[in-house]
């Protein structure tokens, strides 16, 4: 199993009570809540944690992109990746991912990823995502064209990495007379591409196609959904005529380890509940603007998950532990929970979120040490 130490870089000094007056911690939460000095300290702590992950033996360290939110302070994750490259030697750097439809020229993403790959001498893992619904509000990009723009930007970026330039690209959304990357990526023919997703059949079928075989990462989902999407990927691969390997299946989850189940729960509670009840929530209109998912998926969501529209949402750590969205407990408990999913799907990439919500540095670092020392070796 391959282990990624992943970070969202939330803004922990947020006044959670005062912030509740707003529709969401995304898009509309006034940035007067943000203090640049405290923000600088947050970056410093978080970069130190990710650098520490290399010493602890993680295979990769990961960051991602979110805009106009206290949930994550990385509107430009490649800047963080670049800093991490300078402070690490061997660990892979996973940007999970860049939101392709949100840019007006995807070549910027192809170029930046190529630079990171060369700077790191081939340590980059390139994640491609569509961004979440709220980001269509914060960028103004029309969600009705989200899927089209994602696919077209993807085709352009991969072609720019793998086809000698200059060439012309003629799409519906992106048209470029000259595509000719300087620098080209270090890894040949291209850096590995991973697809993190909340899950949708369309994405699974696309990612698993033989010409791509992109590893698919299920994020922030109950255990049953993780198992369902992994097996959906395996079935899609079968339909494409091959057997998917475990290295194509990933699971991203908040994880917390302490010496006992009770202690782990108590220490993780504030962090987990702030993540799910303060940093993450947003109403339907922000989460799923029309076009972001197909009308059919939208209808299924309205029917199957009416609670998603209920506002405000409140989930306790005990519910989240019970349904397996978060993995929390003693080293043995955490190991067993991960093995239980592995037994059902054979997945081989675990993306661990070891700092979450307001979880303070000292607990995050101890969590990382315990996970790396007591859980990771037995799962390898």
């Amino acid at each position, binding site marked *: 199993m391959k282990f990624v130490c992943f970070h969202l870089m939330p803004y922990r000094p947020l006044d959670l009570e005062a912030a509740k007056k707003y529709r969401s911690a995304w898009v509309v939460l006034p940035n007067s809540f943000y203090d640049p000095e405290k923000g600088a300290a947050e970056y410093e702590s978080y970069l130190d944690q990710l650098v520490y992950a290399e010493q602890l033996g993680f295979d990769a360290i990961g960051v991602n992109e979110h805009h106009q939110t206290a949930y994550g302070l990385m509107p430009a994750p490649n800047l963080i990746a670049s800093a991490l490259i300078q402070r690490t030697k061997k660990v892979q750097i996973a940007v999970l991912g860049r939101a392709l439809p949100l840019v007006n020229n995807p070549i910027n993403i192809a170029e930046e990823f190529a630079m990171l790959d060369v700077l790191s001498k081939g340590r980059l893992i390139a994640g491609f995502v569509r961004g979440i619904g709220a980001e269509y509000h914060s960028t*103004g990009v029309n969600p*009705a064209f989200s899927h089209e723009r994602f696919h077209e930007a993807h085709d352009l970026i991969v072609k720019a990495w793998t086809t000698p330039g200059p060439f012309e690209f003629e799409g519906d959304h992106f048209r470029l007379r000259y595509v000719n990357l300087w620098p080209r990526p270090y890894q040949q023919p291209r850096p590995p591409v991973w697809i993190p997703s909340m899950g949708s059949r369309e994405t699974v079928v696309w990612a698993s196609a033989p010409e791509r075989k992109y590893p698919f990462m299920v994020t922030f989902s109950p255990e049953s959904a993780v198992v369902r999407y992994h097996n959906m990927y395996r079935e899609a691969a079968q339909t494409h005529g091959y057997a998917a390997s475990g290295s194509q299946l990933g699971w991203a989850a908040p994880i917390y380890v302490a010496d006992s189940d009770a202690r782990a729960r108590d220490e993780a509670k504030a962090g987990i509940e702030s993540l799910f009840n303060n940093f993450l929530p947003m*109403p339907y209109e922000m989460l799923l603007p*029309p076009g972001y998912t197909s009308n059919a998926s939208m209808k299924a969501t*309205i029917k199957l998950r009416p609670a998603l529209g209920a506002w405000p949402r409140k989930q306790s750590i005990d519910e989240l532990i019970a349904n397996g969205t978060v993995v929390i407990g003693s080293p043995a408990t955490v190991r067993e929970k991960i093995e239980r999913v592995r037994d059902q799907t054979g997945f081989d990439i675990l993306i661990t979120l070891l700092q979450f919500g307001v979880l303070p540095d000292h607990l995050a670092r101890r969590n990382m040490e315990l996970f790396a020392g007591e859980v990771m070796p037995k799962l390898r």
Partner: protein
Amino acid sequence: MGADRLVTRGVSVRVRRAGSGPPALFLHGARGWPGWLSFFDRVSQRYALTVPEHPCFGASDDPPWLQDVTDLAMYYLDVLDHAYASPVHVIGHSLGGWIAAEAAVRNSGRIGSLTLLAPAGIRVKGVPPGDNFIWSPEEGARAAFYEQSFVEARLKETPASETDLDIELQNKLAAVKFGWSPRWLNPNLEKWLHRITVPTQIIWGREDALLPSAYAKLWSEHLPSAKVSIIEACGHSPHIEHADLVGDEVLAFLAGVRA
């Protein structure tokens, strides 16, 4: 006023018709095909009124080439050419007003007159429209009307069937396609409004919370001969909230237009 289909160059849309007399065409707003309104009864007393459901909306065709409001405007110029022998009185609400204006700047030859009810398409810098895409359904209803009784009635509307739910989702998708970015605006429309040379009236609810009534002044600056009416105690749908008053205004205006 039963529903029928109108086919223009291979695009089939739902349509309702009523009345006889000179032809009139009503272009609906972004919420979708409005069903039959008492305002339509009023207009169809003297005009042969057609109320199509725009392509991309509801159960009309959703042609992939139709990408933005200027495409809708060209589509309606095709409709005017194919379905009518004489100039048509075009009445448009909100998105429909925007479509009508885009069509008229391109070619007013088949348009007898233009009635714009709280039209989208241009905006006053520094006076943003309301954000209907971030509002909850309740906020949207409260912003749509001035009179609370209309709000309460709208809040009680829920899709009665699977088909109604499909239509509602398709309407929301179409609204996003045409209105998301920039919000309810074509930055290139304002500079061509002088090309509208047909008789025009502009009607706006004073208390419009979606498209502020301050926009009426900008329209009238570009269309100095247009008749402008601001309806007091009225939100974004003057033809619904003050159906009789607005019906009378529209009929009086149309009566004065030389055929």
